[in-house]
């Protein structure tokens, strides 16, 4: 449950009137979004639609121009909180993993718990080994990131984020930088995390995953949320022309077997 700070009946994530520009380019044009505890929300949409910026505003990697982002009732967009306070609420998974290349897998995971949560090294290592087991990376604890495949690196990145015991996990295109054959192992870890009740917001192009794992799909275009709803509704019966266009384009763009899979997304449900 949310802490005492929780205000009103809002969700664990509450985004209100969020606007963000880079120079003259307005990337987010007033976003309202609520996510309730344990909910898994996939955000889809064409590149440049502002999905990533939304996720980055949620974990305060970007300062918001206007509006607010509240996590567990804590207005993180106010800029008044320390990085450590934010990290306890939300974990972020990057497209490029961003593991620390100079540290071992184990040290990657223990650094923040030891340095920001004041955990002892032994305690943190026990925690890290547990998390590595969960993502199936126990045997790589002493490896360096560069010795791992992309999929392995991303699984370590997930373990690293979980070590801060966040209430929410954000995924910014977590499989977009992976070779196709490595996508599955990462999605599998994410699916298990979703099952465990973690609140998740996933920026993704993996439509099958979005359909199968998420409770809600949000379609963004041109800095605004165009439509959202249960995956079955958004994928099989999109209400807006732009959503239909986007899903159509995906269908055309993907070749061979994945046409069938994406086709299922659009028509099959």
């Amino acid at each position, binding site marked *: 449950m949310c802490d005492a700070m929780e205000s009103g009946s809002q969700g664990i994530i509450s985004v209100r009137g969020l606007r963000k520009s880079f120079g003259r380019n307005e990337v987010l044009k007033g976003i309202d979004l609520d996510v309730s505890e344990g909910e898994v929300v996939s955000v889809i949409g064409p590149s440049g639609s502002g999905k990533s910026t939304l996720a980055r505003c949620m*974990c*305060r*990697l970007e300062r918001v121009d206007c509006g607010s982002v509240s996590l567990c009732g804590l207005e993180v967009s106010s800029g008044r909180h*320390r*990085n*450590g*306070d*934010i*990290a*306890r609420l*939300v*974990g*972020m998974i*990057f497209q*490029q993993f*961003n*593991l*620390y*290349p*100079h540290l071992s897998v184990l040290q990657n995971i223990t*650094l*923040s718990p030891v*340095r*920001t*949560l004041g955990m002892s090294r032994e305690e943190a290592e026990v925690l890290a080994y547990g998390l590595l087991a969960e993502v199936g990376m126990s045997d790589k604890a002493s490896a*360096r990131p*560069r*010795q791992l495949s992309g999929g392995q690196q991303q699984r370590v990145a997930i373990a*690293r*984020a979980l070590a*801060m015991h966040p209430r929410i996990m954000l995924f910014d295109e977590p499989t977009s930088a992976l070779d196709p054959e490595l996508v599955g192992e990462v999605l599998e870890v994410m699916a298990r995390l979703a099952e465990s009740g973690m609140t998740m917001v996933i920026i993704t192009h993996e439509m099958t995953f979005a359909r199968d794992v998420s409770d809600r799909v949000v379609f963004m275009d041109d800095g605004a949320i165009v439509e959202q709803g249960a995956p079955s509704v958004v994928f099989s019966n999109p209400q807006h022309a732009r959503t239909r266009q986007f899903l159509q384009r995906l269908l055309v763009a993907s070749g061979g077997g994945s046409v069938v899979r994406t086709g299922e997304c659009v028509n099959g449900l």
Partner: protein
Amino acid sequence: MGFDFSLVIPRMGLFLDGALVTVETSAMALLFGSILGVVVGILRVVPLKPLQVLAACYIYVIRGTPALTQLFFIYFGLPSLGINLSGMASGVLGLSLNSAGYVGEIVRGGIEGVPAGQWEASRVLGLSYAKSMRFVILPQAVRSMLPAFGNEFVTLIKESSLLSTLAITELTMAGQQVRSVTYASFETFIVVGAIYLALTSITGFGLRFVEKKWNVV
């Protein structure tokens, strides 16, 4: 005409004493210069404009004026302000301040060379700016800075010859003394040059060794 090293060789002790002073002064200057240089380099990138400007000005002045002028300013100029330093103190201080300007630029380059994703990751994982810098950014930056650091040490060994102008008997000054006694100028400075070359070679070799060891991941 023949060259006669027989006058120079017996005075090898003088050369080696000088070389020792050269190594000592440049090592001290490297130490202090690196510490100050890391501070300057960090100030150069810290997200606080006044500090950035301050560090930039320091680098600008140090790199835009001759090291010899800086040494003379400290040794001959500062006494006007009531600051009287010995030749040795002036020399080491001057070389350190000079080196810090260059090391500052090396550090800045190293820090800026660390991908933005590393800052972002450490930030969302709760590390403060200072902790990100200390545990994530600097350790990576140092690795990329090593070759430039090595060059800086080599430069310092050579620039320490300027201390001869402050009456410090380092290697070049020792050469002067031997030359003034023996008049064997050619032989003397062949030996002096050879010793410098040995010092810079050993330094270069040592640093390549450290680089290799550090890069094994």
